[in-house]
């Protein structure tokens, strides 16, 4: 797991560089879910950049589309695009826009409007069942996103169709653009809500790759989709952004950027000595 922790720090550095260079991006949102994407892409999912359309591949739908920078960084590192292209992020005409874009191999669906991922993932998981395929479908949602009614329409349908190969991961960092999600629109009791909708629910530390790995590798409960509530820290990894709603889409200035990179490198150094 040390290697994956290092990978997550490297990805965080890529994310900060993209955002600092482009002067735009969702810094806090990217950093909160970086460990989730790293666990999925390096430890859990069956995917291959050389066969992006393999009908048996696992599916990933990033419903919280605004955390696009971390998605681009992971896809580049996995070989779905050249790392050099990350420099074009948000530039005129670039494929690497501020939300997932299926012009890039590896991105299944365009997202950006919140509340869309779970219905889509439900359709994909239902198709797997009908086609007698065994791939798994994952979707990552933000916690602020849970105020969207379409999330719960999808939650109902996934349970109704007993889609046990479907996993929804909630990036529960507790913050959204205007402040604490419990103040903006209360979502608790969150686990009870998903259970009441007929889902199997797990709660983990969403910045702990070992815990995420264990949860994501668990055998599903037959006939029930799984919801993993991943308790995360918004802005995780750089002290000035951690747990700060204001960093939802703030861009670091030069001083902040240098400090952030230095912090990430210090954490890498610690891991090197383990």
């Amino acid at each position: 797991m040390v290697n994956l922790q290092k990978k997550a720090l490297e990805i965080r550095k890529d994310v900060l560089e993209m955002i600092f260079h482009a002067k735009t991006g969702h810094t806090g949102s990217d950093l909160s879910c970086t460990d989730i994407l790293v666990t999925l892409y390096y430890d859990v999912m069956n995917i291959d950049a050389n066969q992006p359309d393999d009908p048996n591949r696992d599916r990933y739908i990033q419903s919280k589309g605004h955390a696009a920078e971390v998605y681009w960084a992971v896809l580049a590192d996995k070989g779905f695009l050249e790392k050099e292209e990350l420099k074009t992020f948000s530039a005129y005409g670039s494929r690497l826009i501020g939300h997932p874009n299926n012009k890039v191999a590896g991105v299944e669906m365009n997202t950006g409007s919140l509340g869309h991922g779970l219905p889509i993932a439900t359709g994909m998981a239902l198709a797997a069942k009908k086609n007698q395929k065994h791939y798994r479908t994952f979707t990552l949602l933000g916690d602020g996103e849970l105020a969207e009614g379409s999330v719960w329409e999808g939650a109902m349908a996934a349970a109704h169709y007993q889609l046990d190969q479907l996993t929804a991961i909630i990036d529960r960092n507790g913050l959204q653009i205007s402040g604490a999600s419990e103040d903006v629109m209360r979502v608790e009791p969150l686990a009870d809500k998903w259970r009441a909708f007929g889902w199997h629910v797990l709660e983990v530390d969403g910045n702990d790759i070992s815990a995420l790995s264990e949860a994501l590798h668990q055998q599903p409960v037959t006939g029930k989709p799984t919801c993993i509530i991943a308790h995360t820290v918004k802005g995780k990894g750089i002290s000035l952004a951690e747990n700060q709603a204001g960093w939802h889409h703030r861009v670091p200035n030069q001083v902040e950027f240098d400090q952030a990179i230095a912090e990430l490198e210090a954490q890498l150094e610690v891991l090197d000595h383990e």
Partner: protein
Amino acid sequence: MNKIANRQIMCETLLEQAKKNNDLLVLTSDSRGSASLLPFAEQLPTQLIETGIAEQNIVGMAAGLAHSGKRPFVASPACFLSMRSIEQIKVDVAYSNTNVKLIGISGGVSYGALGMSHHSLQDIAVTRAIPNLEVIIPADRFETKAVFNYLAESDKPAYVRLGRNPVEDCYSEELTSFEVGKAVTMQDGRDLTLIATGETVRVALDAALALEQQGLSVRVLNIHTIKPLDQQAIIKAAQETKLVMTLEEHSIYSGLGAAVAEVISAIPQSAPVKILGIADEPAITGKTKEIFEHYGLSVENIKQIVTDYFRKNG
């Protein structure tokens, strides 16, 4: 008097196609009855997916199914499908380019007595502004069959509006083909052109007959495909005839008439365009025919406007 509704033809055609291709799925939002899909549900239960009354989810799920190689047809009332689900249509279907066919049933003022919540008089406006989405409205049962045979083979996202009640035939026999984006000249003429779509095509044909009895030569264009629009047919009409009148079961704003006017406005010395449709108000309730007559989508009103125009303008 035709007694077969277009939605029944849809069901028959989809059943026939779905028996040949088990990837063809129909999704309903508690709408299998109103879509006349009960025979489909009975004969191919594994190819009918019920989503309950959840119009956002039905389109999202359809997009996920299409992405995995299925050929989903979403059959849901046009009033909800074109409004409640429009963001899923824009993003999950059109933008992501998933092969979803969106079938707006009971379109226009089919649910005439149920009021504005159940009328879909803005669906052309909103769907035609979305890139990568075909917009199709068949005129009668023969065209409906041809359209659904086309849709079963096509790989492109499409929105199709169907009315609820049987409509009089516009064609005299089964069609052998359907060419998307190609207007049909139902009859040719030199003096004026009536341009119609869906249930107003029959009105246009009846009005043409009445005008011919007054000595006018009338062209009738059936724009079954609002998008992609057959611009050439419209330009020709504006150049070769002296008046263009559009007829639609839709708001007078941003529908067929607006689409025709957008094309003609760039053509020098073209015929003027008169747009007939439903006024910008919560539409009066009643039966389709009553509502059409109330808003002037009637032979009498068309005759009046045309007669006045030619009296003043020769």
